[in-house]
């Protein structure tokens, strides 16, 4: 996998040098080995900080809303999952596609720092990444993990594949996930309503309304969110009550329903580890079940399921997927 980093870097350098692009959107090295941050590189010397590795989990597509408006082309590296968000944003006219040079890049799943910390790893000196396992070097010691143990939740069930790009950097076939994307949704559906209520009360009451889930979400790309807009009637700055916790998350999930590509960023960034993706995934699962398989972002033209209908759609009284 280290080879991918070299190829990506080389690609970035070449395209910058020959003037194809004016800047590069990628990931930058951090201080602790795992704390990569999304960054824009303007020159070959800038690119010294560039890295693509097992910690390049952040979805870069949303940054293109701003970056694609600027003068000159921007090169972006898109992991399979990021590409779906990219397409969705193009579909919503939020990215100026002509100003973006897309390079699809192989991804075999990215690591979850929280999970590594639970395994006792606080700092990372190096990673050796294979398709199904990974070795992390920390303070002189080597730790080997099966991928499922340490992958970001979104990666362990990822079925996304490379779409179409200007170029592709890929050396291996993508690993097939060993877990079912809807497993937990199904588990929750199988619970009683009381159990489900208890589960979600526990999870959502942790919410501190930092808005990280919303701000990282590529589908949450409104100029101004209704929750920030005093005129909307539902503006709120804090969860003053258990109702507001629910309101925010239900409405947010509803607003992105049919547009959410299941990129999993909401859960990745939640400081309170709320499995927010399970809300979106419920909508996805219902949409698939009721209106036919739909993957947002697979292309940049198809109408979303909430802006379409058939005359024979299920009635709201018969749609419940779960237990009572």
């Amino acid at each position, binding site marked *: 996998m280290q080879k991918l980093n070299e190829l990506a870097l080389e690609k970035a350098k070449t395209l910058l040098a020959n003037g194809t692009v004016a800047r590069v959107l990628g990931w930058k090295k951090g201080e*602790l080995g795992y704390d990569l941050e999304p960054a824009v590189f303007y020159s070959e010397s800038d690119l010294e900080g560039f890295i693509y590795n097992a910690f390049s989990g*952040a979805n870069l597509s949303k940054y293109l809303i701003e970056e694609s408006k600027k003068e000159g082309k921007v090169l972006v590296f898109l992991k399979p999952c990021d590409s779906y968000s990219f397409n969705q944003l193009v579909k919503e006219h939020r990215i100026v596609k002509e100003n973006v040079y897309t390079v699809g890049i192989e991804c075999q799943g990215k690591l979850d720092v929280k999970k590594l910390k639970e395994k006792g790893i606080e700092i990372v000196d190096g990673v050796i990444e294979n398709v199904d396992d990974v070795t992390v070097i920390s303070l002189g010691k080597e730790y080997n993990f099966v991928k499922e143990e340490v992958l970001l939740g979104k990666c362990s069930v990822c079925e996304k594949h490379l779409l179409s790009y200007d170029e592709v950097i890929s050396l291996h076939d993508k690993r097939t996930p060993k877990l079912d994307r809807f497993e937990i949704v199904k588990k929750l559906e199988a619970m009683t309503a009381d159990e489900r209520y208890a589960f979600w009360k*526990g999870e959502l009451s942790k919410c501190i309304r930092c808005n990280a889930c919303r701000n990282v979400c590529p589908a949450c790309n409104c100029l101004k969110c209704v929750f*920030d807009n005093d005129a909307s009637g539902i503006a709120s*700055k*804090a*969860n003053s009550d258990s109702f507001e916790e629910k309101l925010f998350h239900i409405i947010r999930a509803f607003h992105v329903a049919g547009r959410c590509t299941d990129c999993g960023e909401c859960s*990745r960034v939640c*400081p*309170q580890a709320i499995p927010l993706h399970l809300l979106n995934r419920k909508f996805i699962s219902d949409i698939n079940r009721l209106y036919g398989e739909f993957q947002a972002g697979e292309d940049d033209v198809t109408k979303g399921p909430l802006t379409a209908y058939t005359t024979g759609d299920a009635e709201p009284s018969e749609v419940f997927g779960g237990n009572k």
Partner: protein
Amino acid sequence: MKKISCENLSKLYSEIASLQELYLPVKESGVTNYKKYENGAEVDIKTLKTVKSAKDFFFPQTEDMMEFKVNGKNIEINDARKVANPFVIFGVRACDLKSFDILDKVFLQEPVDTMYKAKREASTIITLACNNPEQTCFCKTFGIDASNPAGDISAIIVNGEMLFEAKTEKGAELLNKLTCLEDAGDTDADAERAEIVKKSENLPFANLNLDEFKGENLMKLFDRPEWAELSKACLGCGTCTFVCPTCQCFDIRDFITNEGVRRFRCWDSCMYSEFTKMAAENPRKTQLQRYRQRFMHKLVYFPQNNDGVYGCVGCGRCVQKCPQNLNIIKVIKKLGGKNND
């Protein structure tokens, strides 16, 4: 000094809880936060960084202030502030303890914030030394000793036992009431404390250079071009501010109830795009400006106004929680001066 075997800690918790409300780090739904102690709670004193800091006790995320009852065309105004009952916080780390000093400088200055003061006075704080400071801890940079926090009672774990020392009268009074504790005799914590100091010293960010963060450099720092790069990935979420033990900005908002209006205050974040929105204008239009504000405040403006006390305690929560891995360490390293690499 008093002590108790770590195996019997639940007895201690129960006993304190029988005297006053007790709050301590509890693991729930996968994360550790301060919670009111209840029998069977999964107390977690291993985790150094609760997600939310201990500032919540004095400055909670939302707090009612007053209430307007509307009946037809009549309005009645009522005080909605809650009375603060005495309570105990257990397990406060040195960094969070230091954050109380910083918050005091804000809220206890004239005009005194009565809601904050009432809760501050109602509290008894039991601190806990950090036996194993983490890589992301950098309290030492701000001169904080993780091995020996004070508070009303100071606690430290030594060889499977927890030792307690009263630091204030209030602390001594509580300690004396606790029957489950035994006298510590000649057990002492000096060796353990020395060990902690040594560990802290070896942490990667223990001695960050803060030299440049001086009042006279204010404009120079403000204009540094690096802010663009530093803030580039910032999402404008409020995570860093809400997990931060020293961030103290709030907003006052009204909520329309079925009977009128309730006025409450709630945390606000300088990272939010609407933070400085005023009737006519929003002076901080870009995320760069907002990002710069947060760190300039912590590292330059606050110490300038508060005898050189920095507005950061090096707890490392933001380092852990920033969705895109931006943090104060990266800022200090870039702008704080030489030898930061």
